[in-house]
C-alpha cells in the first residue's frame, strides 16, 4: 500500500510518501508485491516527465530572467555572473534530485551485510576490485565505519580489501558525480569515477601488502558478532520510499552548500580576470598538486559547496588535475572519520592509510595535468 503522509515536526520539505501497511498488521506482514502496482509506476513516470521538461527549459528561463526581465547586458560582469547562477543552480539541484533518488533505490538492493558476505574470504586483488566497486552502491556512512570494519574483519575480509571499500565508499559518491557531471561534463565525471576506483583498489592493495594487521586494536578480533542477516524483503513501494528518504537526507542536507558554492562560483565567473589562477594553480606550477592535497586532507566533505568554486577556478586557468586532486583529498580523507577509525586502528595504521591515499591522489593529479 502506498499513501501520502504529512510529516510533522522539523520536516519542512515536501509531503513525504511513506510505504507502509495498515496499522493492524504485524511487522512481518509487509505486502510483498511481486509485480509493482501500476499507480506507483504512473507516479514515477509522471515525475520523470516533469523532471525532463524542467531540465529542458532551464536554459531559456535563465536567459529570459537575466537578459529580458533584469535587463542585464550579455557582455557585462553582472549579467554573466547572474546568468551563471540562475542556470547552474537549478540544473545542479535537478540533477542531484534525480540521481540521489535513483541511487537511493539502487542501494536498497545492497546492504553492508551482503557486501560483507560477498567480500568474506576473497583473496586480495580480486577482493580489492570488488570492494571498490561495492563501495559505490553499498549504503555507507562514515559514522558507522567502526561496526562495518569489525563486521568485515570478523567475516575474514582481508585488511587491504576493507580499506579499498573505506576509500571508495566516501570518494565515489553520487553527490560528487552529479556535481562533476553538471559542471564539467560527463568525461570529467567518468574520469573521476575511474580514477577514484583506481586509487581505492591500489591503495587497498598496497596497505594489504604492508601486513599491518598488528596495528588493528586487538579487541576487534575478540568481538563476538551476532547474526548478520540482511534478508529484508522490500516491495517496490518500500524501495521508492527509501529513494525519497535519501532525497530528504542528502538533498535536504547539501542544497544550501550547492547554492552558496554556485553563488561564489558565479561571482568568480563574472569578476575574476581570465587566467588569474593560471600562475598559482596552473599546469606550470608543479607544487600546486601536493599543496592542493595538503590543503584538502584536513578539510571535510563539503564537496557540494567546494566544487562550483573549483569550476570557476578552472574556468580561470587552474589545472583540472590539481582541482580534482583537491576535491578527492577533501572527500576521501576526512578528519572526523579518522577519529572514528582510531577506535579500531592504531595511529600508525591511520597514518599509513592517509599517506597511501594522499600519495595516490597526488599521482592522479600529476598524471592528469601531464596528459590533458
Amino acid at each position, binding site marked *: 500500500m502506498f499513501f501520502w503522509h504529512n510529516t510533522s515536526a522539523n520536516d519542512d520539505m515536501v509531503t513525504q510518501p511513506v510505504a*507502509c501497511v495498515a496499522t493492524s498488521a504485524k511487522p512481518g506482514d509487509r505486502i510483498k508485491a511481486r509485480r509493482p502496482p501500476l499507480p506507483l509506476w504512473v507516479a514515477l513516470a509522471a515525475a520523470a516527465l516533469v523532471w525532463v521538461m524542467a531540465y529542458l527549459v532551464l536554459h531559456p528561463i535563465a536567459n529570459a530572467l537575466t537578459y529580458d526581465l533584469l535587463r542585464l547586458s550579455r557582455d557585462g560582469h553582472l549579467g554573466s555572473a547572474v546568468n551563471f547562477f540562475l542556470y547552474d543552480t537549478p540544473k545542479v539541484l535537478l540533477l542531484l534530485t534525480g540521481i540521489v533518488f535513483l541511487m537511493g533505490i539502487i542501494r536498497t538492493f545492497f546492504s553492508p551485510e551482503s557486501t560483507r558476505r560477498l567480500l568474506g574470504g576473497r583473496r586480495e586483488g580480486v577482493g580489492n576490485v570488488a570492494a571498490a566497486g561495492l563501495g559505490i552502491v553499498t549504503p555507507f556512512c562514515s*559514522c558507522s565505519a567502526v561496526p562495518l570494519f569489525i563486521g568485515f574483519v570478523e567475516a575474514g575480509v582481508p585488511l587491504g580489501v576493507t580499506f579499498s571499500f573505506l576509500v571508495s565508499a566516501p570518494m565515489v559518491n553520487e553527490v560528487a558525480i552529479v556535481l562533476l557531471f553538471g559542471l564539467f561534463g560527463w568525461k570529467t565525471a567518468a574520469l573521476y569515477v575511474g580514477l577514484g576506483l583506481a586509487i581505492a583498489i591500489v591503495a587497498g592493495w598496497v596497505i594489504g601488502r604492508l601486513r599491518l594487521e598488528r596495528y588493528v586494536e586487538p579487541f576487534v578480533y575478540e568481538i563476538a*558478532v551476532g547474526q548478520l542477516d540482511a534478508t529484508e524483503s522490500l516491495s517496490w513501494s518500500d524501495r521508492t520510499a527509501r529513494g525519497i528518504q535519501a532525497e530528504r537526507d542528502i538533498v535536504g542536507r547539501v542544497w544550501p552548500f550547492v547554492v552558496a558554492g554556485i553563488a561564489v562560483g558565479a561571482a568568480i565567473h563574472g569578476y575574476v580576470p581570465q587566467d588569474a589562477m593560471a600562475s598559482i594553480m596552473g599546469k606550470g606550477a608543479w607544487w600546486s598538486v601536493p599543496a592542493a592535497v595538503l590543503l584538502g586532507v584536513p578539510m571535510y566533505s563539503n564537496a557540494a559547496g567546494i566544487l562550483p568554486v573549483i569550476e570557476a577556478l578552472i574556468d580561470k586557468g587552474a589545472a583540472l588535475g590539481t582541482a580534482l586532486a583537491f576535491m578527492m583529498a577533501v572527500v576521501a580523507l576526512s578528519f572526523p572519520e579518522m577519529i572514528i577509525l582510531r577506535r579500531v586502528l592504531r595511529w600508525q595504521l591511520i597514518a599509513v592509510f592517509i599517506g597511501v591515499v594522499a600519495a595516490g591522489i597526488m599521482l592522479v593529479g600529476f598524471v592528469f595535468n601531464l596528459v590533458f
Partner: protein
Amino acid sequence: MVKIEVLGSGCANCQRLEALAREAVAKLGVQAEVAHVTDIKEIMARGVMATPGLAVNGKVVSKGRVPSAAELEILIADASEL
C-alpha cells in the same frame, strides 16, 4: 511495556532516531522505555553492522537508516499490541 533500543555510538543519525522514537512514543501514548546502546560490543553482538540500529522488544527491526516517523509509529504500535 514496549522496550525500544537505539543501537549506535552517538552519531548524529543515532540521536535523531532516538528523538523520533521518543516523539512516536509520546504521540501514541504507549508505555515504553527508550534506551540508547552505545557499547560497540553489544551493538555487534546484536548483529548491527550499520548504525543506527533500532530494536523493539529485543528484536532488531532496522539497521543503518533512520525510519520515518510514520514507520516508527507503526513498529511501536504493533509491539504494544502484542
